[in-house]
């Protein structure tokens, strides 16, 4: 009898152990299944978001002069990698949107509730490519004394009724300082001294330098000053001094003198994360400029030939304005700028201004004389 009791006790205990072990295995199986499904679902949502973003960005680059805003979850940051030629979600294993041929200017990491897109055609003098600008509501632009800088003030994309909202739901500020300009740099102080950490970038566009000791704040934002020359028009070649400050007003990166050709290029510099990003995007633009210039050279030659075959219809003076050497010079300077070592020399942009002006005048003259115009 004792023997039977012992056997019964062993059997009962073994049953429970067996049930626990098997139950644990089943539970582990379902937990791992749920986890893998969650990861797949997250990847799928990110992939769908990226696909839609790709279409939106393609459309936005064509819709020149139009501001689009795209809502984004605050937990997701969009990474803009010019060197890697991809726009993707940070910490994502997905390949991302290919931006190898899109001339895009924007922060390296975009965090915020909204992304704004804007585009302008870069024309020197013929249309080369649209420049696409990206920014978020966590980037604050100040255009100081916009009476002088009215062209810049009016082109920075903003929804006039839009207010930036931080993660606690508090309205902090407008993307651009309302419809009023900041009269002088001293008026910037309250904003630069704010303690909020919502902003990632504070960009100040001014014709003057920032005085030392202007601000002491705890903001974690990158503060960048773009000192532009005081010009009537920003459509030609000029240089901009770019200086980066920390929250105590100390210069973090020494002033860099950056070459700019045309207003869209200036906007590209202002929207870029730093000078290196601007240089990378301008390299793409110059590559496109090279291709377009070659096509325009051929087009100009074909039109000259066509006019010569139809001299009873067109004025012989037309031939004077189909000058292939101007296009060849542009191609030459682009080649010098891009170089073979992979480092773009933007100082070569200074050589384009006269060539572009001459081509523009010749094109206008062709139009005036009712000759076929290349562009």
């Amino acid at each position, binding site marked *: 009898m004792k023997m039977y009791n012992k056997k019964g006790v062993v059997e009962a205990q073994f*049953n429970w152990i067996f049930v626990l072990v098997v139950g644990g295995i089943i539970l582990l199986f379902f937990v791992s299944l749920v986890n893998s499904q969650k990861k797949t679902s997250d990847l799928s949502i990110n992939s769908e978001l990226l*696909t839609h973003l790709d279409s939106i960005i393609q459309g936005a680059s064509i819709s020149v002069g139009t501001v689009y805003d795209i809502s984004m979850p605050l937990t997701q940051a969009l990474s803009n990698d010019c060197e890697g030629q991809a726009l993707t979600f940070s910490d994502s294993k997905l390949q991302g949107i290919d931006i190898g*041929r899109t001339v895009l200017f924007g922060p390296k990491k975009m965090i915020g509730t909204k992304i704004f897109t804007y585009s302008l*055609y870069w024309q020197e003098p*013929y*249309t080369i490519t*649209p420049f696409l600008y990206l920014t978020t509501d966590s980037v604050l632009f100040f255009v100081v004394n916009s009476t002088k800088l009215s062209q810049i003030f009016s082109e920075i994309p903003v929804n006039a009724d839009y207010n930036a909202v931080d993660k606690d739901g508090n309205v902090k500020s407008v993307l651009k300082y309302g419809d009023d300009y900041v009269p002088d740099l001293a008026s910037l102080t309250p904003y630069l001294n704010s303690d909020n950490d919502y902003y990632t970038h504070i960009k100040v566009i001014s014709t003057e330098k920032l005085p030392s000791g202007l601000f002491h704040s705890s903001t974690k934002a990158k503060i960048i000053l773009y000192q532009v020359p005081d010009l009537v028009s920003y459509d030609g070649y000029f240089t901009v001094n770019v200086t980066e400050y920390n929250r105590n007003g100390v210069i973090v990166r020494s002033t860099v003198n950056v070459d700019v050709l045309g207003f869209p290029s200036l906007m590209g510099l202002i929207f870029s994360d730093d000078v290196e990003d601007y240089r990378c995007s301008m390299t793409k633009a110059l590559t496109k400029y090279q*291709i377009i210039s*070659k096509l325009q050279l051929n087009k100009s030659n074909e039109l000259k030939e066509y006019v010569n075959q139809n001299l009873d219809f067109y004025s012989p003076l037309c031939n004077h304005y189909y000058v292939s050497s101007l296009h060849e010079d542009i191609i030459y300077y682009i080649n010098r700028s891009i170089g073979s070592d992979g480092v773009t020399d933007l100082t070569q942009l200074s050589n384009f201004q006269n060539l572009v002006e001459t081509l523009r005048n010749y094109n206008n003259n062709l139009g005036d004389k009712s000759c076929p*115009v290349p562009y």
Partner: protein
Amino acid sequence: MPSSILKKAQMQMFETIGVLFVFFLLLAFGLIFYAGFQKDNVSNLQSDKTELELVSIAQTIEALTELKCSEQTSITENCYDLLSIEIFSRYMKNTSPGLFLHVGSPNTRIHYLSIFKNSNITVAVFNESSGNFTNYPIYYNDERDEKNKIGRRTNYVPITIKDSRNDEFYFGILYLTVFI
């Protein structure tokens, strides 16, 4: 008596194992059906992706300034320049590299290869006098291998074409084919 008690204990365990076996069998059936459902889902997604790629290429061509009509640097939307199309078509065929100053150089072809990838693009211009269409291949991917492709999707976009030589307008069709 001891042998019958032993037999009952073994039956008890077999019952538990039997239950577990049936449970895992049902689970396996469920997973097989789920996998089949996911497979359909993936093929639908693939089809959607191809459609989106077509739209994306159409948008890219829309953004190509090298083919658009322009008047004194002002771009005319939804209009393509016939002379630019002819030059571009010859450029991509690379028939006369000397004439085009090495325009058809490898770097340029790589530039457009990365934009248009696995697609064929042709512009057909309607000639009213002859009543026929003249085809201008804009992009043709020489490196694609048709044997490895499951199929193709084609989109037709009606466009306006302007000849900048004599300011005449024509009707045209943009053929976009994406290979899956």
